[in-house]
């Protein structure tokens, strides 16, 4: 037996004054009576019970000593060894995923789960310790193993459900990785079990219990939603939507689409019972902004009736084209609405400028200018790309299809009159080649990016092909650092974003302009170098800039068919090749020894009072 507060054992010193007080002769109150005749008669009979009186006095002393002893022990907070009490190691897996927001009467499933969790904590017995793990997209240990019920109750009260999907697999991996312990491990799953049974290899001396929350629920929701700009036109986009019907009847679901808060379109879908329906909606045009879909149905889970997406606003990229004359290139630049092109004659050329990208065609400066550049047909010698002869009628025989510069390009059969042969060093990356002779090269350093095309486009039929403006646009966007492809892909719920990752969602494009992130629930996360922004709620996340502006940053969505299926599981949502041992119910002492001791002390106090101090008022 150990004591949490051993200094309270000094309370045993109170024995001495108590015994001393009993040994001291009590000073009696003097009372006048007219005669002792009657008292003598009564007390003569009482002589027979004198020994009993002495015994009662001794009993009073013993009771008081026992009372002090119990109180002292209770104050010292003893704890018994686990072997003695059959103590357990309890892992409480509490589901805080989006489906726990389903309304069950007056309460949500999460509130019911919270009651269950409190009940499990109250049920802890002597020597038990409990670890509290919340399960959503990630499994988080919100409190390590402890025997402090108060600490656990406090933590449970602070928990809130997230809008993320359930990922019990990670939580069960956590259970499997627990270090060995002499006590038996009991794992409680407090969840609606609205997910596919999770495979598990039950660790030894581990038992499981499923504490289900929630009843049957007919739910319809948007289980998938995303937007994608068209490659050919970043201002045009498609919408991908998936609706899931977790009920037993086919449902007709009206869906409203709002862009920038204004109703843009409305649709109706027939979603078969128990199935999902996927649709890609026609093209929309917008200058970017907030896109929200709303399924106008009444059910117990309103969260999945809304879906959110953002379309990044295009950034204007300032480009200067330094050429004596290149109409095809000029035309290609004007087709890209994100590009602000400026034509500069070679005699007006200055080395420094505020343009993001400089394109040289038919002329090149003697020195490579600072900043990002595209050289077409020729380049300065200081670029480090040595020329060696000419290639006659080269062909695009291979190109890196997955490189952003080559995205959506079809370069086969482009007729090229001639190209410059080059000896490309390791600093150059070959984006396209003609039978191992490089045609398009890219040099990237921390300071600048340079793209080199080894042939003059005017001597080819490339400008007449669709691939030409795409190549130019890809090259400019890549060099300018614009990456629309990633900006419209929203981060998943449950993840954490660093300040660096947030920059790519920012329309400002620079880290310096972001000051804080405001979530859909109003939480504000100040951004510093080590800040991590948790994506926990579905909705729009906005950025607060140093210019006191609030811009849309990204959207987060539930977007999970699994969370839309809210019907709870009737059995333990685990599966294994081996039988999964379940927790046996039995009697357990649900309170600590100090409480027992304090209770006994109170009982003794009452007993002593009844025996020695009770007065009957007649």
């Amino acid at each position, binding site marked *: 037996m150990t004591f949490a507060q051993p200094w309270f054992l000094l309370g045993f010193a109170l024995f001495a004054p108590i015994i001393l007080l009993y040994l001291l002769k009590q000073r009696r109150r003097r009372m006048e009576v*007219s005669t002792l005749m009657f*008292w*003598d008669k009564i007390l003569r009979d*009482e002589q027979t019970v004198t020994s009993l009186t002495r015994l009662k006095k001794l009993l009073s002393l013993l009771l008081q000593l026992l009372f002090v002893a119990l109180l002292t022990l209770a104050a010292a907070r003893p704890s018994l060894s686990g072997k003695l009490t059959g103590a357990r190691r309890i892992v409480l897996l509490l589901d805080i995923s989006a489906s726990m927001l389903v309304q069950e009467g007056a309460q949500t499933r999460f509130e019911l789960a919270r009651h269950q969790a409190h009940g499990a904590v109250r049920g802890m017995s002597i020597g038990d310790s409990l670890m509290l793990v919340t399960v959503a997209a990630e499994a988080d240990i919100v409190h390590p193993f402890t025997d402090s019920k108060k600490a656990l109750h406090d933590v449970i009260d602070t928990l809130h459900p997230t809008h993320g999907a359930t990922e019990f697999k990670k939580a069960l991996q956590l259970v499997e990785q627990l270090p060995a312990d002499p006590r038996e491990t009991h794992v409680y799953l407090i969840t609606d079990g609205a997910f596919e049974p999770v495979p598990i290899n039950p660790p030894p001396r581990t038992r499981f219990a499923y504490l289900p929350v929630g009843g049957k629920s007919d739910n319809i929701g948007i289980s998938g939603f995303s937007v994608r700009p068209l490659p050919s036109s970043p201002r045009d986009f498609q919408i991908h939507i998936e609706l899931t019907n977790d009920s037993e009847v086919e449902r007709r679901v009206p869906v409203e689409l709002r862009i920038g808060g204004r109703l843009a379109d409305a649709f109706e879908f027939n979603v078969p019972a128990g199935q999902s329906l996927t649709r890609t909606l026609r093209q929309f045009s917008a200058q970017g902004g907030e896109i929200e879909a709303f399924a106008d149905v009444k059910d117990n889970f309103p969260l999945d009736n809304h879906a959110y997406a953002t379309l990044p606003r295009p950034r204007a990229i300032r480009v200067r084209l330094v050429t004596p004359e290149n109409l095809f290139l000029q035309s290609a630049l004007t087709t890209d609405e994100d590009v602000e092109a400026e034509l500069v004659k070679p005699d007006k050329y200055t080395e420094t400028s505020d343009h993001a990208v400089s394109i040289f065609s038919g002329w090149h400066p003697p020195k490579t200018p600072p900043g990002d550049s595209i050289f077409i047909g020729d380049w300065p010698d200081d670029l480090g790309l040595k020329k060696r002869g000419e290639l006659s009628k080269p062909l695009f025989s291979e190109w890196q299809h997955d490189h952003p510069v080559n995205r959506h390009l079809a370069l086969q059969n482009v007729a090229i009159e001639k190209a410059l042969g080059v000896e490309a060093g390791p600093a150059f990356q070959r984006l396209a080649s003609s039978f191992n002779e490089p045609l398009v090269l890219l040099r990237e350093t921390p300071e600048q990016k340079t793209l080199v095309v080894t042939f003059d486009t005017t001597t080819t039929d490339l400008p007449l092909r669709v691939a030409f403006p795409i190549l130019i646009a890809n090259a400019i966007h890549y060099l300018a650092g614009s990456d629309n492809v990633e900006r419209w892909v929203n981060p998943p719920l449950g993840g954490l974003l660093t300040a660096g990752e947030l920059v790519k969602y920012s329309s400002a494009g620079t880290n310096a302009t972001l000051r804080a992130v405001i979530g859909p629930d109003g939480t504000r996360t100040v951004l510093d170098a080590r800040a991590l922004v948790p994506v926990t709620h579905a909705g729009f996340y906005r950025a607060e800039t140093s210019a006191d502006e609030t811009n849309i940053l990204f959207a987060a969505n539930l977007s999970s068919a699994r969370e839309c299926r809210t019907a709870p599981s009737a059995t333990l949502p685990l599966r294994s090749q081996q039988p999964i041992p379940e927790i046996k119910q039995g009697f357990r002492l649900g309170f600590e020894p100090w409480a027992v001791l304090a209770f006994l002390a109170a009982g003794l106090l009452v007993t002593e009072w009844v025996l020695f101090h009770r007065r009957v008022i007649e």
Partner: protein
Amino acid sequence: MSALSALAAASAPSMDDRDQPVFGDDFLETLEYLQIIARKILSGQMKAERRSRQKGVSVEFADHRPYSPGDDFRFIDWNVFFRTEHLFLKLFEEEEDLYIYLLLDCSGSIDFGKPYKFHYLRRLAAAIGYLGLASLDRIFVIPFSQSLPRSAAQQLAARGKGKVFRLLHFLEGLKATGPTNLSHCMKTFAGSRRKRGLAVVLSDFYDEAAISGLNALRYQKFEVFVIHCLSPQEAQPELLGDLRLHDTETGRFREVTLTEGLLRRYRQTFGDWCTNLEQFCRKREIGYVRCRTDVPFQDIIIHMLRREKFLQ
């Protein structure tokens, strides 16, 4: 307000009157009222003097008894002798003054209580004495504790209403002290008095042999009337816990731990003892009045006159 209630209100004893005078300014007035009430109650029954139960010489025939040698020939009823040929003596009621002996307990046990028991007893004695004096009876006030007073100066003998101040003065001068030996005192008194009469014993009767004392009076042909005086603290003591009891009569101490159970037994014993005394008196036609000192003494006097046929 009736005369009686006004009387009660005017002379109700206070709860702590040990240091107050025994007889206040209005005490005589109270006695006068009592006498008026007594006259109403006894109207038609009193003849200024009461007949004695003693047989003696007077004109009122009482009874016959057989002759025995030595009897006075003058009282032989010759008419009866001629009819029966047996000698019988005529007996006549003896007309004499009524002798009222107020035997007042002045032991230490009387020196107790709130209201003060000794004051209470003396007021009762004064009231009875006043009624007797007003009826031209002979009043004797005999205080006793362990023994009777040895000298005549320590007793009072009075006759006539004019002696009322002497009576009150005598009662005021008494002290309550010493142990009780009621039995011995009664026996001594009964043996020493030639004149029989009404013996009113005012006491708390805290003497195991009290009954034998009363019997001694009876055997000596005294008409006995018992006034049993108790204080509320004796009847219903409110004592609890570890106590050192001090007997005000003997000065003896006794340590006791009083519990509710013990108190219950005390009340039972005390009640039984009072009941036994009362039953003894009732069985032997001894007038008995039990009075608590928290009851106005006038009520007791009226009760005695009405219910107990006192002075009839």
